[in-house]
């Protein structure tokens, strides 16, 4: 019974908190730039407004266009649910490991890209094509990073991963490299600077925004919420692997509360780091992506090699 | 075999080979025909001599065929053919005579080198005969290669065949020599008919390339 309650809690909490995280990042960024910035709850207001508004569909939009926001949101949500955020036991991590999460995020990307091409505008096409390009570049780095982690944990299931990482792995160059790779992949996948700019609406620099240009009303709300959730997902993922402290291993109330607190702290720290990073760096050209993500792949492979060596010496 | 018998057989064999070289040397068609006729006559004599000394009467038949057919009938026929078809009597040589002769000497040397060690257990006569015969048989094709003319190819073939018959005659107790010489004669006759009926004056490889292409069936546009 508690399991079920916990599961529901784990499902709902990230969705509820995702806009807050986005709001936090925006706020910090604004502050860093010397502006006052919007309220922390501004994303909630935006979403609510979008839900109220009348959705407008292009004449030739198909069922795929209408369905994609729901399914892609559900996909990200499912992936989120598989990550041990504050507790391991009831998570779906048993059925969906790290590779499956990567796969689910791929599905979400495909759905949104297809929706972008549905209306038949050139912006949709440009967005979809670039989004899939980024995905293609990010995936190898992600997978090799997973290999590095699996070398430590002997597992790809997140609860095991997080457990193994919390049990005296210590500081290692190899894991730092894997972390670097993972962070770079996360930046690319969540459409943050320097790969994409979530705030821009300047046509030729858009990737994600270009794809969802035709959406409005509740469809857009779901897409936006999905994007926010994805950011939460990546921060939680990195948190649960590289900062596996505080995650509850049992259903005890104290442990759970501590876990939740730790998670919130991790999210906040992650948001702060992201805002800092985005403030000091500039967006790069489209054809610089291969260099950025190639570096991620290189980091990940180096991580694997270092792990081989350290395990061999042990 | 007595010394004299051996000497005569040896002489005849050597004569056949010498005539082969004479053939290589010829530049005129009619002369070549005459030489090959002479070679056939010597061959007939050699066969007859073997028939006498070895008491193998069937070799007389071989000798007879060689004399009547190859030394008399075929050369007459060839002469008639040359006149009848207005084949020019000059023979276009591909290689110079010197080179041809040189090749002939080489071939002869090879024959001797090949045959003599092979037949170590045989009589001296047979060994020599065989070496000469092989040389003659190889000089025949050499002539065919070295001259551009249909009739000279018949002559070359006849010379080659003379060599073979010489060898067959020399081998003691070789059966079917008569049959072989008959078969060869038929072949030669067919050759000549070929030349005659098909009016093959020259080889098709005359320098006229356009004609060549027309003939090959392959290069038609």
């Amino acid at each position: 019974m508690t399991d079920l309650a916990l599961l529901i809690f784990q499902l709902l909490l990230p969705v509820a908190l995702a806009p807050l995280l986005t709001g936090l990042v925006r706020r910090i960024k604004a502050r860093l730039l010397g502006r006052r910035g919007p309220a922390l709850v501004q994303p909630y207001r935006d979403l609510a407004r979008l839900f109220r508004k009348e959705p407008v569909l292009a004449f030739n939009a198909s069922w795929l266009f209408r369905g994609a926001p729901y399914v892609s949101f559900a996909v990200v949500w499912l992936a989120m649910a598989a990550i041990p955020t504050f507790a391991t036991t009831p998570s779906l991590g048993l059925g969906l490991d790290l590779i499956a999460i990567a796969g689910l995020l791929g599905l979400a990307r495909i759905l949104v890209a297809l929706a972008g091409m549905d209306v038949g505008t050139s912006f949709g096409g440009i967005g979809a094509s670039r989004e899939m390009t980024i995905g293609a570049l990010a995936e190898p780095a992600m997978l090799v990073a997973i290999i590095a982690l699996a070398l430590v944990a002997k597992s790809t299931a997140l609860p095991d991963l997080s457990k193994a990482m919390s049990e005296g792995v210590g500081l290692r160059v190899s894991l730092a490299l894997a972390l670097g790779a993972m962070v770079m992949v996360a930046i690319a996948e969540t459409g943050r600077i320097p790969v994409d700019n979530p705030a821009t609406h300047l046509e030729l620099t858009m990737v994600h925004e270009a794809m969802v240009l035709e959406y409005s009303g509740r469809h857009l709300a779901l897409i936006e919420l999905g994007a926010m959730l994805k950011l939460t997902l990546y921060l939680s993922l990195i948190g649960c692997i590289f900062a596996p402290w505080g995650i509850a291993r049992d259903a005890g109330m104290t442990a759970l509360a501590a876990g939740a607190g730790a998670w919130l702290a991790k999210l906040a720290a992650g948001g702060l780091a992201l805002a800092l990073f985005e403030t000091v760096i500039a967006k790069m050209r489209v054809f610089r992506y291969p260099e950025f993500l190639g570096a991620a792949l290189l980091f990940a492979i180096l991580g694997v090699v270092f792990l081989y060596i350290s395990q061999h010496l042990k | 075999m007595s010394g004299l018998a051996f000497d005569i057989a040896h002489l005849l064999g050597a004569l056949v080979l010498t005539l082969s070289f004479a053939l290589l040397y010829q530049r005129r068609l009619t002369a070549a025909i005459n030489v090959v006729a002479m070679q056939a006559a010597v061959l007939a004599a050699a066969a007859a001599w073997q028939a006498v000394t070895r008491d193998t009467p069937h070799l007389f038949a071989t000798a007879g065929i060689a004399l009547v057919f190859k030394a008399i009938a075929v050369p007459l026929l060839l002469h008639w053919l040359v006149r009848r078809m207005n084949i020019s009597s000059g023979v276009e040589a591909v290689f110079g005579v010197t080179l041809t002769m040189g090749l002939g000497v080489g071939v002869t040397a090879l024959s001797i080198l090949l045959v003599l060690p092979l037949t170590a257990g045989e009589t001296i006569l047979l060994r020599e005969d065989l070496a000469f015969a092989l040389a003659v048989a190889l000089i025949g094709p050499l002539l065919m290669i070295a001259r551009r003319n249909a009739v000279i190819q018949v002559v070359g073939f006849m010379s080659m065949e003379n060599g073979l018959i010489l060898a067959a005659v020399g081998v003691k107790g070789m059966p079917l020599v008569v049959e072989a010489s008959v078969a060869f004669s038929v072949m030669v006759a067919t050759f000549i008919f070929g030349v005659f009926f098909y009016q093959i004056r020259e080889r098709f490889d005359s320098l006229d390339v356009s004609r060549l292409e027309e003939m090959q069936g392959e290069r038609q546009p």
Partner: protein
Amino acid sequence: MSDVDQWTLIGVAQATFVGLAVGGCMTNRRPVLIVPLYALAALTCVVALVAALGTLLAPDADVVTRRVLPVGLPDIKSHLRLDGLAAVFLVIVNLGGIAAAVYGIGYDAHTTEPARVLAPFPLFLAGMNLVPLADDAFTFLVGWELMSLASWLLVLTGHEQADNRRAALVYLTMAAFGALALLMAFGALAGAGGGYTFDAMRRSTPSAAIATLAAFALLLGAGSKAGLAPLHVWLPLAHPAAPSHVSALMSGAMTKVALYALARGLLELAGTPQWWWGGLLAVIGGLTAALGALQSLTQNDSKTLLAYSTIENIGVITAALGLAIAFKASGQRLEAGLALTAALFHALNHGLFKSLLFLGAGAVLHSTGTRELDRLGGLIHRLRWTAPLVLIGCLAISAVPPLNGFASEWLVFQSVLDATGLGHWELKFAAPVIGALLALAAALAAAGFVRFFGIAFLGRPRDAVAANAHEVTPAMLAAMAGLAALCLAFGAWPGVPLEPLGRAAGMMVDPSGAAGRLFVGQGDGRTAWLAIAPHGDLTAVYSGMVAALGLAALTGIAVGVTSMASRTPARRAPAWDCGFPEPNPATQYTASSAGQPLRRIFGGPALAARDRVEMPPAGDLRPATFASAMRDPAWHYLFDPLIALVSRTTERLNALQFLAIRVYLSLMFAALIGLLVVVAVTR
């Protein structure tokens, strides 16, 4: 089911195939026969499928039955053997066969010369059914070549077009190359004594050199048929040239039969496998996968695109197979079983979704008459049923959960993770590279199929043919729907097919020991259909059911909550397009523009891809032009030079036909003299 029944079924099926081929010859004059012949072909495939499933699903893993027929090579006869591995491939072949035949009912009614398809079609199926059953080299190669020969005729169906004839020529020549290579492999394994039965080869212990020689020949022979780079060049030519249901069979089934040969040969026949064969194979597989996916992404012809994607998937399967060999050679049986299971599962899945996609491309071709992506668009509105079915195929091949393509790629990745634990440092270092290549291939495939579906089915029609497309016949839809349903089912419950596949794989990697129980995780503790846990504990689990049902439930919640929160009905309006909507459909992204970023990033080095834009100076009224060119490196570096070499040699040698008799005589004379000299010298 007793084995008598299975062999009877197989015998009946093969005889029916031959009969159907004879019947197929008559369809030019009697087109009315087309439908019954296809229906009968589908039924025959069902019969063969039942026979194969009988072995595959038998609870005792080592069920192996044999037959010896009094035909074939004298003194050796024709040996047949049905075991788990053979049964797996028979299932793949016959599933594809059923779909293709059912599809054919609706597809082939209007061709001018139906006999060109209907006569070889059953023979093609017969050949593919014979190869996995063969248990001696001769029978194997007869089946193999029958398969090539029949599919060659099928490629020639559209023989009026020069491109198709060229494709057929390249195909058949490559097939002959492959067969010769296999022949040599079998020759090496059989030895000078002529032990051509596979049993004799299993018993013999060839020296390492011979085994390696045979393994290389096998790799060349089976690899060329499967489409491993750089021997893949025939595949993108031949597969698209055939009628679509045949393309589906060629891509979905025939390439798998080639992989069967590779698996059977390297794991069982070629003596004790050596670790580096596996490593080499895995690297080749990874490279093939990445190259295939990349090429697929740059094609503008729907069926060529699918053919390149086949090359990609063959690469994935080969990589897993290579890992299986490496594990087996290192004595890691459990991991070997897992890798082989992954290969088999991906082969099965690829058979399903690639057939589905080829049938879908065929439906598009059927209703629009074109394979050019740039003339399509908006078909989702016209082909109401085909579109979702093709979408399922696209998602499956893009390896995303909850579809079957993900389940098998997940297993392959698990094997790659295992490979990091291999003893040889070469293999250890290769593992992350192979993993990266496979991940790149999967992601490129996803990009490629987004492009394929997006250009063909989404957007606005780019041409009248697309605007006027019509939905295809029920039989064609039924074939696609069946395959799509299997893709979904195997995605949601991968454990169901994996259990028998794991048994079959277990038999191959460890025939002596606890056969079939090597690949555990099913049956004990957790129910097989709920999740797959290859290592038998909790370290790596994937539950297709959680993914599928979870996704369905969460989508339902999202829809439900949203519809409660927001009741305003949607309004239709012109597209927004940043305020400047352009009615001309030519302004949409085209197939080549959709592939441009990746073509530019990877294509430059790998495919010599060049985009050339000619922008006239200001004031010049000429239109700007864009040209995109690329060249398959295999043609450029390997086959073109070979063809040029043959051409030059023949040109030179041809003079030999036009010499004078004299010269021929001198050749003869010289040869005689030469031989005499040789004899004189060697004496």
